[in-house]
């Protein structure tokens, strides 16, 4: 594997298979009474979060701790003007403390890539603006693979605010890499610019019609619609969004009973996903969370400890 995990483009299908194999071992560890492994003893992992996060930060923190790494959280607002300390100065300061891995979230797309060019540590992108969130995509694919077996040829439907979603961008790369057929659905105002050319080149499909694609779905991923997008700029009202694109109770009936339903969280129940769908037997939303810790343990392990079995 490469030194950094900045994008799904940094891992091959073989790398992903290795990560998933390790994650499965870690998943077993999660069920033990004593969860700590010595694999990363003496290594230091800094969670550097310039943007608020609860689940991703705690997931990485638990992952690091269960591997016996020294895990430190640093939070702060990223500079949004050119007047404050430069990003380079900030990360050089932290990097100089002797860090093995920097798990980084930033509100700006590309920030993790830039930082990887400045510091010696391995950089794990825990979300950069509206660009990528590779560990989320890996845990989503891991969760689906456990449900569906191989993703080869399976039809995954992703619905939501694609323009502003790093989860979408990483997932479309990851799922197509694993052989899945991907259809993404959004109103035109929430489709990324140039998505027609992009989807053609990258081999995924786009649609404005969620009802047309759900019947052939082998899995569904609902994406969060951010509050700040609801004020009428991108679509007229939350009610209209739900009618057009929400996973409502009626749409749940379009899905086969074994079609897993994913959501990266936090959910807007009643907006993009009805409670009936979120809590359905086929929902894997909480499995995603527990898989998140296992997959992040596997990522840290492969980037920092090298080859071999960890558990």
């Amino acid at each position, binding site marked *: 594997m490469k030194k950094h995990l900045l994008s799904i483009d940094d891992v091959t299908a073989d790398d992903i298979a290795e990560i998933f194999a390790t994650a499965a071992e870690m998943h077993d560890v999660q069920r033990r009474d004593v969860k700590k492994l010595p694999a990363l003893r003496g290594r230091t992992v800094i969670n550097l979060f310039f943007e608020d996060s609860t689940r991703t930060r705690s997931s990485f923190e638990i992952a690091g701790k269960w591997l016996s790494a020294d895990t430190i959280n640093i939070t702060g607002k*990223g*500079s*949004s*003007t*050119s007047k404050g300390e*430069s*990003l*380079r*100065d900030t990360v050089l300061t932290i990097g100089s403390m002797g860090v093995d891995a920097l798990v980084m979230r*930033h*509100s*700006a*797309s*590309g*920030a993790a*890539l*830039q930082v990887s060019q400045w510091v010696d540590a391995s950089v794990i992108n825990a979300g*950069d*603006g*509206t*660009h*990528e969130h590779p560990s989320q995509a890996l845990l989503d694919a891991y969760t689906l693979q456990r449900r569906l077996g191989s993703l080869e040829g399976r039809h995954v439907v992703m619905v939501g605010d694609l*323009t502003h979603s*790093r989860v979408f*961008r990483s997932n479309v790369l990851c799922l197509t890499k694993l052989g899945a057929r991907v259809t993404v659905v959004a109103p035109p105002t929430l489709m*990324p*610019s*140039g*998505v027609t*050319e*992009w989807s053609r*080149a990258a081999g995924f499909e786009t649609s404005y019609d969620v009802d047309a694609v759900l019947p052939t779905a082998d899995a569904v991923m609902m994406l969060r619609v951010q509050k700040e997008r609801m004020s009428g700029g991108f679509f007229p009202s939350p009610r209209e969004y739900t009618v057009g694109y929400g996973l409502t109770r009626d749409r749940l009936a379009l899905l086969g009973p074994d079609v897993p339903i994913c959501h990266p969280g936090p959910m807007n129940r009643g907006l993009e996903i009805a409670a009936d769908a979120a809590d359905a037997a086929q929902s894997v939303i909480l499995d995603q969370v527990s898989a998140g810790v296992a997959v992040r343990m596997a990522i840290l392990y492969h980037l920092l400890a090298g080859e071999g079995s960890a558990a």
Partner: protein
Amino acid sequence: MSATPTKLVVRGASLLGETTGDLLVVDGVITEVGSVDSTGAEVVDADGLVALPGLVDLHTHLREPGREDAETVVTGSRAAAVGGFTAVLAMANTSPVTDTAEAAERVHDLGVAAGLVDVHPVGAVTKGLAGEELAELGLMHRSRARVRVFSDDGKCVADPRVMRRALEYVKAFGGVISQHSQDPSLAGPTSCCHEGELSGRLGLPGWPGVAEEVIVARDVMLARHTGSRVHVAHASTAGTVEVLRWAKSQGIQVTAEVTPHHLLLTTDLLAGYDPTFKVNPPLRPQEDVLALREALADGTIDAVATDHAPHARHDKEHAFVDAAFGMLGLETALSVVAQVMVESGQMSWTDVARVMSTTPAAIAGLERQGRGLEVGSPANIVLVDPSADLTVDRDASVSLSRNNPWHGRTFGAAVRATFLRGRATVLDGALV
């Protein structure tokens, strides 16, 4: 040689790349062209070099006052001279803004003191570049700086009523409004990547071409309505070219400039999130680049202007969306234009003289600049080696800043000498 000969002979230059001849310069004025007697004169051997009139840049940011750590009038003048320029217009978005006669005179005087190129301050259109109230346009014009070009560059004069009044008002003294065409609601302050497939994939806020085109279209209609003159700064899209072509066909008084970087660099350079390539308007796709070249060659776009925008290193070492907009351009402009337009066969050296000297001087109303290499013209001359092998090294720049998108690129033409009213400011490619 002495830096200030009273009698100078430029020997054996290819004049505008057409005929070989000598230029005799006496007391800063060309007095003879052809085969001249060099008795008693300093002689500059220009064998194999192309002589053009000194270049005129309608669009630079010299950062003084306010950001003297990024550039000063002196260091910007040096970069201009090295690039073959004898006159530059210095944009108003300094701190404080050039929106009063006093501020304009200060920049003017700093330019005179530097003495390397004529520095003409551009006046702000609106007070503090706020886009609301007209700045003291007339007083800036009446000042020692004789301001003729007004621009809120960096910001668009977005309010159509304010733009209309500015266009009307400057008619009284032959002024021109140079517009930074960016509809602020279609391309806001975070918009930093050409809106298209790449911005969608990279998750960078898009800056769509249409945000420029709607302002250009609006402004040419305002220029027609008011009978005024408008200048389009840094045209960057094929759509803007279409609007300009139509407007000119209607006899509307519109002129436009294009930057060297928009003639060569493309949006795909942003794939690595390197803020060196962050500029406003953003780098565009190849189809826009080709349309801009064609428009420059056929006269739809009138001039090349650098938008030289130095920045301190730390202002570029932020996340891409937070980093400063802009790139250096003065030292490399002629080399880029030669590669893109002359070496490709799209333009002659005479055309280069037109778009980089004569026409920009006319747009800015600079009577002593942009004149032909003719008897009676002020001896503002640049000598270009058209068969050079120049690899740009950002650390060799005379600018204070290093945000150089041309670093590591190789060009086949290079400025060898620059003369400002007969006085060499650059010889053998280096400052005198």
